[in-house]
């Protein structure tokens, strides 16, 4: 029962299904099992590590200059981007060329930057009670949400791209309508 409750909470707080963050990246991830695993891992890394860094930015940045937040987030994600590419290069040099495309796709997009802003929004509503652990957990949760959405889309991916769907609606249009229906179901869970 706890697991079901957790799953419902995770679905209801899902940033893709409830806020459409990272939809384009999701379509890339849902294209195949390899794409899904790699993109989901990189997105989760960026949302978790980025949220942890965002905690310090949010604590240090005065509210009078809050418009600088985006710039700070981008610098942090930029640093993580370089670090991750360097790590991938040294850990798996032969597969670097293949793996780096997933890092490039997953770095500056609505899924990652949107997560940081959503967590910031949540933290400002909760006041000082939102600590570093909450930031990291929220980042991890966003990554998990991305994986769940990608899995939901992967299940129907082939059928939505099959010749049985009218050519005008085949692929992206059908996937958008499908996500809309899933999003409607998630909306009713709230």
């Amino acid at each position: 029962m706890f697991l079901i409750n957790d799953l419902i909470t995770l679905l209801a707080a899902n940033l893709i299904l409830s806020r459409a963050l990272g939809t384009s990246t999701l379509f890339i991830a849902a294209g195949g099992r390899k794409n899904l695993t790699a993109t989901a891992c990189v997105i989760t890394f960026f949302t978790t590590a980025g949220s942890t860094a965002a905690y310090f930015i949010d604590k240090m940045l005065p509210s009078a200059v809050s418009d600088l937040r985006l710039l700070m987030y981008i610098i942090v994600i930029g640093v993580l981007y370089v670090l991750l590419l360097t790590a991938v290069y040294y850990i798996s040099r032969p597969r670097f060329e293949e793996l780096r495309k997933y890092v490039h796709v997953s770095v500056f997009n609505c899924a990652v930057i949107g997560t940081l802003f959503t967590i910031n929004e949540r933290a400002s509503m909760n006041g000082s009670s939102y600590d570093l652990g909450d930031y990291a957990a929220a980042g991890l949760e966003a990554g998990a949400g991305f994986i769940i959405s990608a899995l939901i889309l992967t299940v129907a991916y082939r059928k939505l791209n099959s010749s049985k769907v009218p050519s005008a609606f085949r692929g992206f249009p059908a996937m958008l309508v499908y996500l809309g229906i899933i999003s409607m179901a998630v909306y009713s869970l709230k």
Partner: protein
Amino acid sequence: MNDRRKALMGGVLGDNVVLSGLMVISPVIVCGDTLKNAAALVYAFSAITFLAVLISSFVPQKLPYTVKVILYAVIAAIIYIPVKFASKQLYPESISRIGIYFPLLAVNSLIVFQTEAKFFRMNKRDMIISLIFCILGFDIVMLITGFLRELFAYGTINNHIVDMNTLTDGLSKPFGGFIFLGLMCGAYRFVRNAVQKDKSEVRSDTDVSYK
């Protein structure tokens, strides 16, 4: 229309940023529920994207790809600051409603990825023309979405009440945005395929299959 002109102006009809490329769709889905929001997003997207791509074109192309992408995003984030400031004066009501989707415009695919893949492979003049048409493509879709969703969800046009018998409240919600955009994408593809088919039939008698 020759191929070069078609490629430059394709951002509006032939290869629309939103309906064909599925770029910058989050703000359209979530915030494109009223004409006022749409206008604010059109202003912000146009200003940020145009200036960011234009300034980014001066970044040395010899730099590694990763460094260039970070620099493009940083440039867009810097441009976002005065644009946001101006938006607070021009669209005070819409800014709070748009919320986190406003800064997200600065990391749109057109700035971060299309610069390298498309714009910086052209000469400056072609780049500016192509960029303007890509931006116009987004603007048109955003305004149409805002207009239709406001009309059918709230029964108003730019906050003026219209005599509508049936209202569909769900259209104002994100799921409504997903479904509406999906249907719009399908309709756009249908029209584009039909137009391309017609043109091909005029040029030759060969069969043209829908793809």
